[in-house]
């Protein structure tokens, strides 16, 4: 009861509801009793937190209301088509890129020349050199970016579509069936690019979100089917500690990585996948994971954030089951035949790679 009385007094004091007499009495009390003083400070802090909470809750509420309000008015939409940009803006954007390229080319040349000058002049302090290196790097980067956009413009991606995401994929049947991760394929379609940079149109034939696998079929007259695929796909589980390697497209060029199988289950004991120790980057999703005999043991899919090198791969036997699903869904796919013979066993790694790289593709997903 006393506590409640005290609390009431504190609240009235903080809200300035006390008359001067009461106030001076209370302040004197605080001075005498440090405990009460401490309670006042604590309560003040708590009420401040309470005010913040109330304000936060209120603004959240308003935002929700505004959102549904605007939605019902049609000012914003969800789920439907996003409004496309006006033609003039699109034109301007294109133009802007060209200007940017011109500028960055100029910049690179200027920096390059000044770089040469700095390089050949004998007295240079280190920090300066580094700085210049950085600048060059930045310009180069932006130029690369611009370059990739120009390629996209000329590419087989429909001109009204936007590039949404990129990943890797690999052939499982020379007729043009490619396995990749389901999460790579955002949007409505995809083009695949081989390691030489040649693009092919493809269509998505099946997506399995649970296994995180998908199959694409190359639908392009430019595509020349290879006679056979050099690697096989393993049906059994791989063993702990097995040496593995992968080829994928974290950048526009194909990149090789090596590691080992570190656990027979994936994230949180997921039995559909393995844990592997390999350095992987965005864009590696969908890449094949080979054992040292060149058999595919998995499809690289995710990595654990905040952990170094901890990566997960979907087990290769899931490829068999998704192909089975596909065959059952449509008789047109009955003829898919997974590779049966490996020619990579006991072959030097460099040779293995040159044999395999033809069959690993860069997958670019696009949508409206």
């Amino acid at each position: 009861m006393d506590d409640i009385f005290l609390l009431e007094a504190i609240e009235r004091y903080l809200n300035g509801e006390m008359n001067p007499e009461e106030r001076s009495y209370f302040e004197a009390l605080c001075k005498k009793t440090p405990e009460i003083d401490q309670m006042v400070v604590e309560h003040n802090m708590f009420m401040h937190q309470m005010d913040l909470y109330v304000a936060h809750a209120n603004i959240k509420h308003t935002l929700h209301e505004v959102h549904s309000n605007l939605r019902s008015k049609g000012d914003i939409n969800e789920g439907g088509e996003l409004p496309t940009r006006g033609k003039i803006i699109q034109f301007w954007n294109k133009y802007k890129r060209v200007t940017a390229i011109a500028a960055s080319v100029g910049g690179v040349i200027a920096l390059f020349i000044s770089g040469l000058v700095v390089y050949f002049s004998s007295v240079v302090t280190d920090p300066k050199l580094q700085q210049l290196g950085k600048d060059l790097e930045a310009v180069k980067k932006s130029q690369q970016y611009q370059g990739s956009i120009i390629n996209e413009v000329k590419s087989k991606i429909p001109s009204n579509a936007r590039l949404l995401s990129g990943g890797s994929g690999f052939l499982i049947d020379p007729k043009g069936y490619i396995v990749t991760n389901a999460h790579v394929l955002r949007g409505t379609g995809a083009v695949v690019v081989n390691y030489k940079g040649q693009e092919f149109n493809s269509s998505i034939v099946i997506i399995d979100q649970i296994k995180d696998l998908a199959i694409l079929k190359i639908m392009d007259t430019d595509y020349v089917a290879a006679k056979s695929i050099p690697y096989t796909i393993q049906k059994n589980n791989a063993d702990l500690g097995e040496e593995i390697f992968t080829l994928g497209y974290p950048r526009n060029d194909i990149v090789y990585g090596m590691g080992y199988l570190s656990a027979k289950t994936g994230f949180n004991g997921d039995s559909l996948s393995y844990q592997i120790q390999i350095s992987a980057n965005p864009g590696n999703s969908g890449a094949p994971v080979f054992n040292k005999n060149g058999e595919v043991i998995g499809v690289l899919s995710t990595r654990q954030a905040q952990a170094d090198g901890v990566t997960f791969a979907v087990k290769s036997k899931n490829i068999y089951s998704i192909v089975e699903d596909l065959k059952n869904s449509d008789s047109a796919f009955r003829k898919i035949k997974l590779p049966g013979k490996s020619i990579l066993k006991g072959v030097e790694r460099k040779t293995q790679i040159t044999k395999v790289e033809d069959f690993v593709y860069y997958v670019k997903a696009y949508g409206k």
Partner: protein
Amino acid sequence: MKGDSNEQALLKGLANNDSKAIETIYKDNFTMVQTFIISNNGSYDEARDIFQEAMIALYEKAQTESFVLTCQIKTYVFSICRRLWLKRLQQLGRFTQQVDSMEETVAVEEDLVTHEKRNAEFVIMDRALNSLGEPCKSLLEGYYLKKMDMAALANEFGYTNADNAKNQKYKCLMRLKKLFFSQYNIGE
């Protein structure tokens, strides 16, 4: 300069939780953020979440007295959303490539740190309130959130008089305080 004063007015409106101003800012910026998030592996729901979180961050910033926004609202909101989204993506650990990141941005790290602290405090208070149980929770919400007076609250909850309700409210408040500080001090 006209645009500037216009934006200042909008921010003032936001700080006062004025739904007109909020609607204007919302309308001007939402689609841009939505497009960015959708084209970077996000869903519509995620776009809404991220955007609203950025709005709350802007609201918090607009409320501080020393507040000055040195760039356009649009740039600020986009920068916050971009940071938040990249962080979210990183947590998901997905391996797909970023394609869209050519918009102008400003540094928002510090603001985000403040915002995250506020968010954490909000969650602690929310949890404390929810673990209070009824009728304590509704009583406190009625008094502090809805700003109802004691007599109305006594009436609504069926207390015989305002004094009893007040007593009850203080009891609840003490429990809430205990719950809040036990969590809050761990967090520190």
